[in-house]
């Protein structure tokens, strides 16, 4: 699971209003898979991101910190773009747990695939 995926997922357990952002439990196993750098895609996907959730996800995986605020100057900053690309698209959470911030429900990630399926009594 890339952090871009994590950025979009939420807990939809019954009674939860936002269920976002999902916490990443400590001890997650990550792998890095190289991926072509494309500034176009970063520009394209940026408006669709919840930046604060991305920043906190980076922190919980102890990745290099992303700035809290993106300024126009950031887009000219090659190192920032590379770092964003790395954190967003190259780091995979292979094994771990996602935690709903409201209900505490845990969603396991195994072999890189998060299991977001709800139980029958959570619908």
């Amino acid at each position, binding site marked *: 699971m890339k952090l871009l*995926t994590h950025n979009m997922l939420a807990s939809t357990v019954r009674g939860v209003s936002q269920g976002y952002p999902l916490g990443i439990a400590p001890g997650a196993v990550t792998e890095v898979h190289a991926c072509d750098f494309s500034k176009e895609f970063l520009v394209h996907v940026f408006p669709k991101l919840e930046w604060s959730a991305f920043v906190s996800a980076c922190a919980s995986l102890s990745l290099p910190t992303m700035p809290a605020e993106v300024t126009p100057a950031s887009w000219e900053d090659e190192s920032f773009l590379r770092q964003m690309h790395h954190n967003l698209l190259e780091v995979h959470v292979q094994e771990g747990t996602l935690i709903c911030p409201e209900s505490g429900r845990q969603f396991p990630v195994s072999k890189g695939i998060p299991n977001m399926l709800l139980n029958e009594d959570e*619908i």
Partner: protein
Amino acid sequence: MSYLVVFHHTHRDFSLAELASTLSLARGFLVGSTPDSGSAGCGSAGCGPRGGSSTGSQLRSLANNVSSTHYDCLDAASRLLASSGPQKRGVPYLVDRHAAHQLKARVPDALTPMGAAAPVYYVPFQSEQEAAQAAQRAMLLNTIVDVWGSGASVDEAINSATPHPDALKSHKTFRVDIISHGAQLSRKERMDTIERVVRDTRALDNLTVALSAPDVVVAVVVVDSLTMDLSKTNILPKEEKYMPKRARRRLERMRIASESAGDDSTPTPQEQRQHEEAPRVIHWFVGKVVAESRRNEQVNAVLPVSKRRYIANTSMNAEMACIMSNLGLVKPGSFVCDPYVGTASILLSVSLHGGHTMGFDIDGRVLRGSGKVWAPPEAYDSLSDKERACGKAKGYQESAADRERLARQLGELPLLDESSSGMKLAVSPWINFRDTGLRPPVGLCQGDATRLPFRGNARGLFDAIITDPPYGVRERSRKVEAKDVDRQKYGDNHSVSTSRCEVDEVFEHLLWNAAHLLRVGARLVCFLPVQREDYTPSTRPANVCLELLHDCEDVLQSKFARRLLVYVKRRDPTDEEWTTWLHYRDARARGAAIVQQEKEQQQSR
């Protein structure tokens, strides 16, 4: 300017729909922000386009000036965006410059008796370049020809040929190709035709012949209805489709004979010939090839299912997946979702077209893969026929000895180790992306398509939803059904049970997901299984926010077909529509009374 478009199949609905889509892709994209689409109520940030209007108009003028590929547009957009500051969230994304989903295709007059079976159409293009671009991605298109002359016989076609004086001006070498649809030409007839074209076409006098890589290809297109107008449907029924041509002709003759002659009298050979000839349409076209399909080098060489290491029962074939991706207007940078992803066949094609992908499936096993180690595709070639015959063709390793032998055969190719963890090793959808070198999905998740786990403000997230939902025939449709679970008994070991999800319900959810998750102007492409007798346009799934663009029938059996539906999202659902839908969804899942009760409880709190 109208060119003659020759298709591979008489797949009329599909061919024209696909051409319309690739044409609108070719016509370039207008970069800019769409009008605010009432995205209120879907959260504070990141829920789709809300562009600053000045940036929008700048981008638009820029895009109009740049008669270039989407990459340039994207680049320009990103530069502009960078200069204006991303906080404005003036989202540069690509919208069609022309709403050209309705193609102005016309059957050549002489072929009108063939009706839906005609495999060639006149289509207006603005330029040769545009035609070439449209042909580049189309899977069902064979050739686009600038017609010089046409007629009922080859002589008539050549004699009426009047090439544009400039058509061959800068060319030195040429070749003649014959493209026949239904006509059975012997080798001699072919040679005669080619010779006649070379001899009688004045414009070719100054050119020399080059069979490989000529400057210009002259095409002789011949359409013969005898073996083509077999069926009233778009596609021949399966049984006839796979018949040898001679058998098909015989069948046709018998049909014509029995229809016209009544039941008990057998027609004389003379009568038979008359009937045979009466409805027959044969027409010749001569002209210059403007563009040819590149599907062999682009798709068939890269993506065939037979070369993949991870497939399942109903993996979509590469050609159809590419057609779907074309219909979804996927272009570099598009963000595409498949809620019934399976082995990710559709996402492979989307990735081939430069899209970024995301998939969901209710069955996690299919996404995580088997964990067994399979040989890379190169290994297929090194196996003997005997080994292939006894099912080892895919290099499945059963014993240590097998493994060792295979390792030797593979030489330097790394063998993957079952014991270590990670997606690198499991035979899963990822492995197909790795083998083909295509960009792997942004994410594959286990999730229920009737309840996708997106954050609340995900509206407008995707540029297309392209999917092949289970038909309930070879693949079951499943959902998680609401019911109580005895937590005391199962504790944490409870595994979720799924229950059947009817096709109607699948589509209801799919359409609402599209209405929610697509950006305005983006497309939903999906297959709908139908009983052919019962299907009418009124039974088609519909949604207030979506408009149907294409509906193409693909016959599977004589009574059962699937229809490729293409919708475009015209507007966001209003808050009221959306909450009504959510309420309805929950009421169906948990029972109306319970939902009402919960609502009251919430209100009283």
